[in-house]
């Protein structure tokens, strides 16, 4: 029964991915990509990897979908027709052959791993020393915290890269107002976002808290927060801040800075990113909350785009 479910899911995942790649119209590709992200999240759920499923649904089907849709809208505004050119048949067949060959190699490698040699057996005895139950959080924030620290700086770097594309004279400024031009749409979106933003805040706080012992975590929480913030901006409930507001910059840097500070303080306890005895859970939760805030604001601004000249939010003071 589960096998039937997994088989159908696999076929649908391959189908939506293939269509998203080869269809000409950009919006069709985006719609299939969003469906693909959702289905991939289901696949993670079926594999009992709930942390990854949450991340896939939030980021793959949520934020990336919004990013692509907004990019398409900007292309259309520039006069592009947002459709792909036809790829020659030999190119498609060649790409298919290369990918199929790679999949075969990957499958052979994965299937040759003996079932007992998973990471679980290594991590499980170390978890009681941390005081948290979620092994993924343990790996992300304790055993391999260095990787996560670098990832947070990479995310910040991506935002800086987007900001660096601002046209001359627009810096430092606000991104283009994502609010809707049409008044009825604006009212509907505004009312909805006034409900969504508080719920997103609560949900994000819950996900970080639950992430210690149940599936959850900072990235998923940050993405939910980013979604709430951006819908609020689209509904006109909040305005997008100008890039030089100190409070905004503090919020962006807070997560990575706290993470780095804890890491450096850990030198006193034995090494970089070593948590002192008994303080592991406290430090992990602190890092995750600040990280969720930074990730939320960073992702919302990434989606909002570069500052544009003369942009003014609906509230001249913007979001403080």
């Amino acid at each position, binding site marked *: 029964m589960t096998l039937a479910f997994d088989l159908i899911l696999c076929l649908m995942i391959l189908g939506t991915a293939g269509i998203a790649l080869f269809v000409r119209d950009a919006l069709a590709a985006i*719609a299939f990509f969003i469906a693909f992200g959702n289905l991939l999240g289901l696949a993670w759920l079926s594999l009992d990897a709930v942390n990854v499923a949450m991340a896939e649904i939030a980021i793959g089907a949520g934020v990336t*979908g919004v990013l692509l849709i907004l990019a398409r809208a900007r292309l259309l505004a520039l006069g592009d027709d947002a459709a792909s050119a036809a790829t020659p048949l030999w190119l498609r067949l060649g790409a298919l052959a290369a990918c199929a060959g790679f999949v075969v190699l990957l499958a052979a490698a994965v299937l040759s791993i003996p079932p007992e040699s998973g990471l679980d057996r290594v991590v499980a005895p170390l978890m009681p020393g941390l005081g948290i139950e979620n092994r993924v959080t343990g790996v992300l924030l304790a055993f391999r915290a260095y990787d996560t620290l670098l990832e947070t700086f990479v995310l910040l770097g991506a935002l800086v890269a987007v900001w660096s594309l601002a046209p001359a004279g627009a810096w430092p400024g606000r991104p283009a107002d994502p609010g809707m031009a049409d008044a009825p749409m604006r009212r509907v979106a505004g009312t909805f976002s006034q409900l969504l933003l508080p719920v997103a805040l609560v949900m994000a706080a819950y996900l970080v808290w639950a992430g210690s012992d149940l599936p959850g975590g900072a990235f998923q929480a940050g993405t939910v927060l980013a979604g709430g913030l951006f819908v609020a901006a689209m509904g006109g409930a909040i305005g997008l801040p100008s890039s030089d507001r100190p409070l905004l910059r503090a919020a962006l840097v807070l997560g990575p800075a706290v993470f780095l500070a804890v890491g450096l303080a850990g030198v006193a306890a034995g090494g970089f990113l070593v948590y002192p005895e008994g303080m592991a859970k406290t430090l992990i939760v602190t890092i995750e909350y600040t990280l969720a805030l930074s990730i939320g604001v960073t992702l919302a601004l990434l989606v909002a785009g570069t500052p544009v000249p003369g942009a003014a939010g609906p509230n001249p003071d913007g979001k403080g």
Partner: protein
Amino acid sequence: MWRVADWFTLAAIFLLLTVAAALVRCWRGPGPVERIMAAQLAGTGVIGVAVVLGTARGDAAFLDAALIGTLLAAVAVTAFVRGTPKPRAKG
């Protein structure tokens, strides 16, 4: 006779098939609105599958994943209906 949990797994398969049917509309739909509607139906279907699968396996964390999906489902549609910004920058 099957246990009730098995019926829930069967329900998950059925819901997957309804999502596949919606994706046919995504393929054919003559306009962008139809395609976004199909993507949204796929999202609702996937949330249903998450709830049903979580019930079949007794794992309440699946419901958190479904909750995330619900909250973020409307964001893409809201971004889409903004339409094309006019060539003259707003504001």
